[in-house]
């Protein structure tokens, strides 16, 4: 996969390295900005409220007393 990407990048070694760096930074940004905040409430250390069945039914607490850890 990484070899395939490298072969399909244009330019000489330096240009390719630079583009790779930009790609890596972009992917990390997308992860931190969108993917991880989405995945994080699915983890167990994120329920701090007492909410009874309502919260658990919706996955992440939302109703009477939704919440986090």
């Amino acid at each position, binding site marked *: 996969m990484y070899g395939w990407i490298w072969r399909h990048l244009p330019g000489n070694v330096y240009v390719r390295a630079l583009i790779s760096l930009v790609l890596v930074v972009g992917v990390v940004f997308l992860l931190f900005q969108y993917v*991880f905040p989405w995945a*994080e409430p699915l*983890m167990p250390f994120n329920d*701090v409220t007492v909410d009874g069945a309502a919260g658990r039914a919706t996955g992440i607490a939302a109703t009477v*007393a939704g919440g986090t850890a």
Partner: protein
Amino acid sequence: MALRVVVRSLSELCITVGILIVLFVVHLLYWTGLRADSAADDEIARLQKQWSSGPVGGGPDDGEPGGTGAGPDGTPQHGRPQAEGGTGAPGRSTAGTGYRSGSSFAVMYIPRFGRGWSRPVLENTRATTLRKGLGHYSRTAGLGQRGNFAVAGHRRTYGDPFKDFPTLRPGDRVYVTDGDTWYTYTLTRRPYRTLPSDTGVLDSVPAPVNKAATPFDRPGRYLTLTTCDPEWGSSHRLIAWARLDATRPASEGKPDALQD
């Protein structure tokens, strides 16, 4: 040849997954803390600007500016809180505090968590709200009102606001200000460990499942703090209760214990 491709692809996949996990841990341990700290600072700065620029509006009871808490309509008198039935309007619902959902309306200080420990209190307990600070359970009483002012906070991640929750002890003070009044709450017992379904802990007279843990036997002005337990788990909750001990006008400055 084909085998080489399979092995290489598998290895790359494993490395990618490993990097993803490491990045996720960095995100949780480090990044959420940075974001939460800056969000909390922003909220506190915004509140202080708002408080210094004019009379506080939008509080639970004082719709009219200048109603500095001495009104007969449920805001506590400064000084010692009144005895039962003193200032509380009879039949006042504990809901409908008038706080704007998702907005901060107060700042909490808990010296037990460290001298500089302060966090904004925001309305509602949604996940997005708790990323910025502590969340007030919308259906519970407002700050300083009769009933139970209940607040949830993260134990871990997002700045670890309630990391040291188990170190709370009876007699510990919790100071909360809404820019108008300083409220001093005093903890009555060690944190109580319970199940997430134990919603009675938020009642205006808290009624935990474990009757032996019942902190108060009559209506009053109470504070409830909740967080998760164990630190990284969600199987249980830790609850701390406090009662309102004293109030003082914000114009008289910080409580002595918070002076630098």
